[in-house]
């Protein structure tokens, strides 16, 4: 019965699942292609050095990618479950037990994630082969090593994708169904997301971990030169994830700080404040990927730039190994940043599409389309400004310590355009996703858009 309901719901609302599917697909590709390095490393006739490089690449880099994928999947599916609170409440009032609803939502997550993981196999094979080619070209893996894509890639790929999707769905669905029918109908309209200990504790662990790695860079690794790079690099990943977990609280703080300023900005500013105040969860799920994108992007790119400048200062030509590290860093960072960017766009498109009815109600109450778009733009600007400031803060635990170690100064003497470019990408992605979707919503006449 429940499986049938899950399938019917998937078929009727294909659009709503496209976003989750895309995030799961890109996540699965990232995890699978790095895991295929482990398959390749276990092949017969692979020499010890090549094997070790491949294993490190697969487990360390793949591991970080996996963390990010789990994070993205949990937040994307959490958002989609929260957006369906009204439907959940209706199902409950129609007699569905909480357990049936939880099974239905988990069933949907399982179907979507299995489909995404299956679709990821072919692109992962190609990307894995490209990564191996890169490792061979830079001389880190012997030229004779044959590419393998087998059990580990498939097990890890399917396991991480399907596992994190189902667990995220179960967890969010259980929270969503725990409250009574009456309260969940009210909750559907107000949707409060509180900063609970379940968020604060892991956030604190991640933030302290990030700071600790930053401190470790300037103490234990102070005279280790480029060997401090991985330590410093991981600091900003941890710190960004920690801040991202605190997003609901950060949205509330931002609302309190900017409320007075926005109130003077006409109807758009007024509506933005009310939205941020009452739809904290929606704003928070957009804030998270902005923090991750800016934090990790800024941290790792400047890490590499500091390293390049330090090598140039020695007057020697860059060694082959240093060249390799740079190439790998850029590939890895490229993938992570692209992934965070996809997650950002997906979140904004999903949460803006969800507001179709609200936009129609605004128009019926006397808002012109331009006023609706101004409101969406103001909200987007507040969130992206908050996210980039916090992201830059998170990147500091990588950039400042590594600059001390390699250049003997806190603020690296490096061009600001890299930072400006990252901020420009964040602002462009946020505004174009939100405004583009809102623009699409406005094409339907308000009276028709009210139809459920």
């Amino acid at each position, binding site marked *: 019965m429940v499986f049938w309901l899950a399938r019917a719901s998937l078929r009727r609302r294909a659009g709503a699942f496209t976003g989750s599917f895309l995030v799961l697909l890109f996540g699965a590709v990232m995890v699978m292609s790095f895991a295929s390095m482990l398959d390749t490393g276990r092949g017969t006739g692979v020499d010890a050095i090549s094997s070790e490089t491949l294993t490190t690449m697969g487990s360390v880099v793949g591991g970080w990618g996996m963390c990010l994928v789990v994070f993205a999947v949990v937040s994307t599916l959490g958002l989609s479950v929260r957006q369906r609170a009204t439907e959940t409440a209706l199902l409950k009032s129609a007699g569905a037990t909480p357990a049936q609803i939880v099974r239905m939502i988990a069933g949907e997550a399982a179907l979507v994630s299995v489909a995404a993981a299956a679709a990821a196999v072919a692109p992962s094979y190609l990307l894995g082969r490209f990564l191996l080619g890169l490792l061979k070209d830079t001389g880190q893996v012997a030229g004779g090593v044959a590419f393998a894509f087998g059990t580990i890639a498939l097990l890890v790929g399917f396991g991480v994708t399907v596992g994190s999707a189902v667990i995220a769905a179960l967890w969010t669905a259980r929270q969503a169904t725990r409250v009574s029918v009456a309260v969940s109908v*009210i909750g559907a309209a107000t949707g409060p997301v509180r900063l609970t200990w379940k968020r604060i504790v892991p956030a604190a662990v991640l933030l302290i971990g990030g700071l600790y790695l930053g401190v470790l860079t300037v103490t234990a690794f102070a005279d280790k030169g480029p060997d401090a790079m991985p330590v410093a690099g991981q600091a900003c990943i941890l710190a960004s994830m920690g801040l991202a977990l605190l997003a609901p609280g950060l949205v509330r703080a931002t609302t309190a700080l900017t409320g007075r300023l926005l109130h003077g900005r006409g109807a758009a500013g007024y509506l933005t404040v009310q*939205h941020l*105040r009452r*739809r904290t969860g929606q704003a928070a799920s957009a804030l998270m990927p902005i923090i991750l994108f800016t934090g990790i992007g800024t941290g790792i790119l400047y890490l590499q730039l500091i390293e390049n400048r330090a090598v140039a200062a020695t007057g020697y030509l860059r060694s082959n190994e240093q060249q390799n590290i740079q190439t790998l860093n850029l590939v890895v960072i490229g993938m992570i940043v692209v992934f965070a960017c996809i997650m950002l766009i997906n979140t904004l498109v999903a949460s803006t599409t969800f507001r179709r009815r609200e936009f129609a109600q*605004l128009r019926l109450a006397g808002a012109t389309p331009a006023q609706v778009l101004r409101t969406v733009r103001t909200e987007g600007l507040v969130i992206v400004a908050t996210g980039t400031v916090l992201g830059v803060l998170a990147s500091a635990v990588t950039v400042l310590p590594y600059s001390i170690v390699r250049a003997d100064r806190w603020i690296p003497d490096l061009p600001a355009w890299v930072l400006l470019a990252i901020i420009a990408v964040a602002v462009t992605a946020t505004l174009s996703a939100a405004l583009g979707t809102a623009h699409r919503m406005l094409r339907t006449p308000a*009276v028709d858009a009210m139809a459920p």
Partner: protein
Amino acid sequence: MFQQGMVTPPLASGQALRLDAVTRHYESPGGTVRALNGVSLALDGGSFTAVMGPSGSGKSTLLQCAAGLDTPTSGRVLVDGVEMSGGTEAELTRFRRNRIGFVFQHFNLLPTLTVLQNATLPLRLAGKRVDRTQAVEVLTRVGLADRLDHLPAQLSGGQQQRVAIARALVAGPRVVFADEPTGALDTRSARQVLALLQEAVRIDGRTLVMVTHDPVAAAHADQVLFLADGRLVGRLAEPTAAAVADAMTRLTDQAARGRVAEGV
């Protein structure tokens, strides 16, 4: 409950709403749907008109065209003597702001705004000064003085519809349109809502046009207009619930016979 002059003085009578040969056609896969087929009518200021008809007769389309929420295919709509120019959505919105209030079947309150914020939203959107005292007065009149800071989800259906009435009245429009305003309410809430709408006409001199399928609701009006297949087919002055019900039965039977004759 309504005292004269609390919101705005009664409006002078004279033609408040006029439709000249309004048609509205839709293109659908099955061919052209003629939702409105040349409807003309003129309503005096301070009048209360109910519009009835079998489902699919075009009542909601009529209301939406008259209220500037939809654009007629041909014909003219004049509110307060000013022609509604079928321009962009923004132009229509600005036209509606000063002249038209709308009450929907499903309330359409913004879920993120409180009762007071919802009631004053049209003023904010129009860039007008929000007079809190006046807004509280209107909300007191609809019986929600103690609910100002509640969110719509914390109110009953009847209470939400009363907020929606306050919102429709707050900008002092000449014409108020109501599309099945009691359709989602229980009998007692429906009576309260109808009493409030009636008082807006009798005391404030607003012009009210209400689409309904309920003969009891229609009996609150000064006259009932009957619509079938996109045309006005009848008028009943000083309606009673029984007379309205009779007229509707005849109309529904005719429509059914018409469909049989056409072989639909």
